[in-house]
């Protein structure tokens, strides 16, 4: 595996890269450019970068105005503020008129680390998924983050992009193809399907190895686009394996796990166990330690996988 890189880093670089190609790409931030990495774009295209100050709700509205006049705005802040504080602005000003606004939310989930619960947003996927027409993407690595930015630019409509603070391995190779709304099967298996998103894709792959040592065959699917959900792939995995484990760095309420349960309960009822933040707030600590603390690590996934198989 290549060096570790945070998806927020890839986001900032991608904005600068595609900013050269798209004259109408503009970037907004709310006094967090150094952290969200939109500062990389700011350095490359200072005339198309607008700091909105610590005023996220106004930033979302400004992005809407820019989108209605031919620009492709990326509005960035931490997930807590972009999706949390500004939920209603995103719902009414972006979602309802279906504006071509891209929300680049970084520092999602508990791997924010030491800053703790007030800044660890584990509810953003749930919030954004309820808005009609909103596309929700949670990239697993730097490769996917870059391609997700490109896909968001090429898609005409609102997109929520979720990035992380913690450096993570690059899983996908240079030939990786990203398709909006299409999941990616990373490994085949028969006994249980592990369906993961974001940084949990890496843990899912590690869990597969742990299970393999115990003679259990697990498939691993990366669902980078949580909405629209690739229900065909999920139903196919359910049909083949008969047991599912979902993994996300997000509350188990309303996120990927919920989306998979909603899909399968209607199309192919199958036992599903969810790995995620269990209806609790985050806490301070080194990001990597928190992954284990909240039961999001490979060992926890492997245990859940065995429990899911027992439900068959």
């Amino acid at each position, binding site marked *: 595996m290549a060096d570790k890189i945070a998806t927020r880093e890839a986001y900032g670089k991608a904005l600068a890269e595609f900013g050269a190609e798209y004259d109408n790409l503009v970037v907004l931030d709310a006094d967090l450019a150094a952290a969200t990495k939109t500062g990389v774009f700011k350095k490359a295209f200072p005339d198309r970068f607008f700091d909105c100050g610590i*005023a996220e*709700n106004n930033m979302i*509205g400004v992005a809407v105005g820019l989108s209605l*006049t*031919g620009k492709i705005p990326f509005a960035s802040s931490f997930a807590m503020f972009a999706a949390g504080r500004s939920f209603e602005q995103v719902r009414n000003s972006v979602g309802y008129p*279906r504006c071509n606004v891209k929300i680049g939310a970084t520092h999602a989930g508990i791997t924010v680390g030491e800053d703790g619960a007030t800044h660890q947003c584990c509810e953003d996927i749930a919030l954004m998924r309820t808005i009609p027409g909103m596309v929700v993407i949670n990239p697993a690595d730097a490769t996917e983050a870059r391609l997700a930015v490109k896909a968001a630019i090429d898609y005409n409509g609102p997109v929520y992009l979720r990035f992380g603070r913690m450096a993570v391995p690059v899983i996908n190779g240079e030939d990786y193809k990203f398709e909006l709304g299409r999941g990616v099967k990373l490994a085949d298996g028969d006994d249980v399907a592990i369906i993961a998103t974001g940084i949990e894709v890496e843990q899912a792959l590690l869990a597969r190895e742990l299970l393999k040592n115990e003679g259990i065959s697990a498939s691993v699917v990366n669902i980078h686009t949580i909405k629209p959900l690739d229900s065909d792939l999920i139903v196919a995995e359910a049909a083949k394996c008969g047991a599912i484990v979902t993994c996300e760095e997000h509350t188990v309420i309303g996120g990927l796990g919920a989306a998979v349960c909603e899909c399968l309960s209607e199309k192919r009822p199958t036992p599903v166990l969810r790995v995620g933040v269990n209806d609790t707030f985050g806490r301070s600590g080194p990001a990597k330690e928190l992954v284990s603390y909240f039961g999001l690590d490979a060992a926890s996934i492997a245990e859940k996988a065995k429990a899911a198989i027992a439900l068959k």
Partner: protein
Amino acid sequence: MDTKRLGELKEIARKVRVGIIDAVYSASSGHPGGSLSIADLLTYLYFEEMNVDPSDPKAEGRDRLVLSKGHCAPGLYSALAQKGYIPVEDLKTFRKTSSYLQGHPDMKHTPGVDMSSGSLGQGVSVSCGMALSSKLDGKNNRIYAILGDGETEEGQVWEAAMFAAHYGLSNLCWIVDFNGLQIDGPIAEVMNPAPYEGKFSSFGWNVIDADAHDFDSLEAAFKSARECFDRPSVIISRSVKGKGVSFMENNVAWHGAAPNAEQYEIAMKDLGERA
């Protein structure tokens, strides 16, 4: 303004008011008070001030208007109808399930509506984005937003006010419909946003006073805004809530209520539709 033009504008504004009452009466709900208070303002904007063309509602270089106080959709729809964007008879479908005329403006389905609005405080931010975009492109068009006086109690309004001044959006003009009443009562009692002059001035805005029901005053105000090249402008438009309908004037009960059949007839008489 010459007498002939003044007479024409007054007649258009009268028809805008008739349309407001028709819409709200047909729907048995809606917001007549704040719609009537901006009827003259909307008339001035659409028939004197703004560079817009109803035959090409999405023309790229057009001036744009965001009705940030979106609950006054009857006023906007009626002005759009007088201007020729939508048929006047459609006003009677307002708020009906099968109608495109939603309770609050929906830009996706109503020609001439530049932004969906209704959640207070949000439209003004959108107007900032539009104005910034025009500046970026070196366009000469102007962006307008109408906000309620009660709406200025929303914190987002002041986030947007800070933004507009910071980026020198001189192509942006807000109009505060200062009728002094909000749902729970007089704004001075509910949550007093006064004084506007000092607040907006200290936020870096060009502040202009106007009489919302005097076209000469509006003309002077918009001229003053157009001649300010280094700051955004805000017109504090002193208005009468319910203006033009005797029993609705300065009565907060008509913020969001529809007249009954008897009241409708009185309103039509007040507006010169009946002998």
